[in-house]
């Protein structure tokens, strides 16, 4: 399994993702520069968190047109695995690889805190090491994480088992109080129809070592390595 971590101007979680893959999991990983026009052989590509292109215009809107994104869209269309975290998720919705939009948090504040997530489904490769209904602890750090989609899109996400993570409380109750940003249906992460593209606002790469408070996010990366 070969991992790639994309580096945009303004990415700031690229090193965290690289560290987890290289040092914690001892995986084969390389950085991918945003100006590259060809992709070497990768199995899993991570679009990391940060503020690509300064979040100008809309978060993720400019990264979507960077040279490497055109290659990555092809990669995903051919079944390659893609994980967009935070700004990476914003890029994926702007690129149309995932439906809906991520708008400003309903309270207009940047939120940097630990949240609890409910694993709503394990019917995708990313969640192979979780149990359905499992409660995870991971940090969020964003201003535009308020997931919006029209009713028919929400229905399709539900019907096709594509809502992967929902904000919940410590005992797994999905409620208004446990929603940190106003996201519809407390949505924190979704997959595309083929379930090879995952977008999520919380940061699994910042929750991958016990010494940092939680290693609940590690399983997402580990699920591709075929070891427990």
């Amino acid at each position, binding site marked *: 399994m070969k991992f790639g971590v994309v580096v945009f101007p303004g990415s700031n979680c690229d090193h965290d993702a690289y560290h987890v893959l290289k040092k914690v999991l001892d995986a084969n990983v390389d950085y991918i520069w945003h100006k590259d026009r060809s992709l070497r052989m990768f199995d899993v590509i991570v679009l990391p968190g940060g503020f690509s292109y300064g979040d100008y215009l809309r978060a993720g*809107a400019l990264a979507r*047109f960077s040279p490497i994104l055109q290659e990555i869209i092809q990669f995903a269309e051919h079944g390659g695995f893609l994980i967009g975290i935070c700004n990476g998720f914003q890029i994926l919705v702007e690129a149309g690889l995932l439906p809906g*939009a991520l*708008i*400003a*948090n*309903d309270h207009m504040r940047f939120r940097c805190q630990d949240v609890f997530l409910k694993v709503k489904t394990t019917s995708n490769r990313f969640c192979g090491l979780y149990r359905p209904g499992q409660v995870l602890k991971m940090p969020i750090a964003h201003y535009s994480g308020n997931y*919006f989609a029209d009713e028919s899109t929400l229905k399709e996400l539900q019907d096709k088992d594509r809502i992967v993570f929902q904000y919940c409380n410590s005992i797994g109750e999905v409620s208004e109080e446990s929603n940190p940003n*106003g996201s519809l249906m407390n949505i924190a992460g979704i997959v595309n129809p083929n379930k090879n593209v995952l977008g999520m606002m919380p940061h699994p790469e910042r929750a991958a070592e016990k010494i940092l408070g939680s290693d609940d996010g590690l399983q997402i990366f580990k699920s591709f390595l075929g070891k427990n």
Partner: protein
Amino acid sequence: MWKAKVVVTYKPGILDPEAKTIHHALVSLGYTDFKNVETGKYFQLTFKEKMTRDQAETVAREACDKLLSNPVIQKYTYEMTEVSE
């Protein structure tokens, strides 16, 4: 030369938290006459080359659809004006 003046706003039904906050601030300043406040983004696109209005309009619209607005949550209006060089 043509210039397109573009205004991008949220579609009806999309939460605009910034506008809500501004509305509250206006009310607290005593401006209670506004039923609704909306925010948006304004762009001026000035063309380099001489072209027909139709040509310029087509290019401006394409730019709006592709980049300046996100059709999932936003709509836009534009106005074409002729400016001297």
